[in-house]
């Protein structure tokens, strides 16, 4: 299933964001993102994680992360 994990932007350098989700730190290009983002915002990464695909509002990100935490805890992923 093409599940997406909202990832927290922890740094931005020259159009490339460092993002964190479930302890994993990655970098992703902001080139394809339509919205302006800043450190502290959440984004969803596109397939493969090369590009950020979408900004997610904090409430929805929190809800999705809570659900995904349950999925991980029950070993469904």
């Amino acid at each position, binding site marked *: *299933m*093409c*599940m*997406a*994990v*909202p990832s927290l932007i922890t740094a931005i350098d020259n159009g490339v964001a460092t993002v964190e*989700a*479930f302890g*994993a730190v990655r970098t992703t290009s902001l*080139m*394809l993102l*339509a919205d302006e983002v800043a450190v502290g915002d959440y984004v*969803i*990464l*596109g*397939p*493969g*994680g090369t590009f950020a*695909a*979408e900004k*997610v509002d904090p409430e*929805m*990100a929190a*809800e*999705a992360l809570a*659900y*995904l935490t*349950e*999925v*991980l805890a*029950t070993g*469904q*992923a």
Partner: protein
Amino acid sequence: MLPLESSIVLTLHLDEGRVGRVEIGSNRPVQASDMLNGRKPAQVLGLLPTLYSLCGTAQGLAGLEAVENAAGIIASAAQRKARRILCQVEVVAEHAASVLRDWPPLLGEAPDLAALKPLRPLIMAARKALYPAGDWAVPGGGRLAPDHEALTGIVGRLGEAVSRGDLVADRLISRIEDEDMEGFGAIPPSLMPKAGPPDLDELLAADDDGSYRAHPHCDGAVFETGPLARQSPRPLMAALMGLYGNGLMPRFSARMMEMASALREVEDLVQDLSGDSGGLPMARNDGSGLGVVDAARGLLAHRVELREGLLHAYRILAPTEWNFHPDGPLARGLMGVSGPDLEWRAALLAASLDPCVPYRIEVRSHA
């Protein structure tokens, strides 16, 4: 990659230079939707487009249809039309994204990022142009208030992306012809019926352990789902399939045909779309429902049970489970293949079936 962000590993085992076995490894969490159980429908339907963002509209619409069927809600004609527009906008955008992002690397070219960038915002813009309050996935219908000017603009911008995609497609088709690969990957066709397997509701209802969702079939047959299956009744596609079966040329051409026809359909539907207040109540709090949507990559099914108004046995079957099934069109199409550039040719076939997760190809020789 996080455990939740699944991927596919395609391993080609060579036996005396020919592919003797195809292994498709997938860690896709087909049972993740079990965790939606016990929640309220509106909460889940709000969450689905974020959780499954690649085809978020289709996921939201499939869930919506399943919930409405379970709750005995019959959405109005205007709501159904607006939902079809949302679905087809995503189909066009996803096909165009695949053409502009995934096809150029097959030709040794860079993805067309400039043309790719506006596509995802157009999906969001279509939702807003139809449902300004953002309630497009609410059971009983949201407040539908079409902004015709905005919708016309969206159609125009999608058309621009389709035109850019045409250029990439022309080069890819030429290369396939140059390599004499028009029929590459063809197998005896086993195409998904328009409404899906006839007993899909029963099969999903009985799938407590997720084994059917991981490896779906219909009386043992593994269908190909997606543009080729949907476009196959059209005369031009029938003619192409007469020449090349379900090989690369018909599969890539079907994607382009579907992209153009979906765009035309959106253009037509927008013309006479009227508003609707929505808000139909749930007719019952207990029941079960199936929702089936033609997502860009193929048939997407959601099945739910409602118990005292809460969701149970939430099950999702995605198109990639059919097309990338160990006995599906990709695996069978690669059996017996030999010759140079095996990895590239396997990538072409995989791209023609467009999985919804990243994939990696490994070739292993066995003495």
